[in-house]
């Protein structure tokens, strides 16, 4: 009908467009076309993952594109987590200095 011929407004952004905007926003460039393709795939995976988290989350959190959207979960953990194993947890609270205040 006539409705179908009407302009449906702006079409949704393609993944590649979204990724281009991400690159501009966070100033990202990739050294080779292969690296670009890999990062685009990771980006797509992370957006899908964010959508799944959004649906599963029991709170009010919103998940989506962030500065870390082109990183794998492993890379994210390696870059921003602390990998050192907690083998040195102090079991005694350390007391500092003298009990007498005013001493140097």
């Amino acid at each position, binding site marked *: 009908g006539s409705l179908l011929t009407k302009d449906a407004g702006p079409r949704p952004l393609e993944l590649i467009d979204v990724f281009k905007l991400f690159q501009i926003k966070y100033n990202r460039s990739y050294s080779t076309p292969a690296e670009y393709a890999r990062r685009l795939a990771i980006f797509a995976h*992370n957006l899908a*993952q*964010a959508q799944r*988290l959004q649906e*599963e*989350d*029991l*709170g*009010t*959190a*919103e*998940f*989506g*594109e*962030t*500065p*870390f*959207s082109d*990183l794998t*979960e492993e890379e*994210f*953990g390696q*870059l*921003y*987590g*602390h*990998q*050192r194993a*907690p083998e*040195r*947890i*102090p079991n005694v*609270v*350390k*007391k*500092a*200095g003298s*009990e*007498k*205040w*005013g001493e140097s």
Partner: protein
Amino acid sequence: VPSTCDWRKATNIISSIKNQKNCRCCWAIAAADNIEALWRIKHRQFVEVSVQELLDCDRCGNGCKGGFVWDAYITVLNNSGLASKKDYPFQGHPNPNGCLAKKYKKVAWIQDFIMLSSNEQVIAGYLATHGPVTVTINMKLLQGYQKGVIKATHTSCDPQHVDHSVLLVGFGKGKEKEGIRSGTLFSQSRKPRRSVPYWILKNSWGAEWGEKGYFRLYRGNNSCGITKYPVTARVDRPVKRQPVSCPP
């Protein structure tokens, strides 16, 4: 324990959001944020301490390769305090000349540090009466976090695998998402919205990330292992103690 608490609302207590960049020093930033907040609460003095000193003077040598908040407190105790951020600024990588702690005047120091009980009610009580505390959480869900309260399960966010230290600055209650109660086709009704208790946490990924650098986690189910390592420095006002003596 009050029903809500937000140290950000107190004037000049919480320092501005830091950015760890490509250095894995969340542990040093969380400790620095903790010391800055406590120093401001106890001494009413606006101090900004040197995160770089914590990295360069860490006994394990390379602070950008990770660590734990207690490493930072041990460094503060061993160096008898911390220099200012202005004198000894953050570079995002270890200083090739090593620890420069002796070069600069100390602007803040601590008496000791303690680990709180792994009980969310106890942590809330301490937070409300003493000041912000550091916690170490599983950061898995933060990769795609934008805003709101994360309510994780132990499956979606393993509370045993904690790998990111941040500063706990408050807690509160919000309204849960509006949902449709399942029923017959004609009798769908809206679920009553219950309140969602949450923690307010200060991250170290810049103010552009999350909720102006902060994020919120559900309070009450040990979300992402928040109760595993609640650690805080102790910064006390000098008080004269009466000497005690043992009766002869």
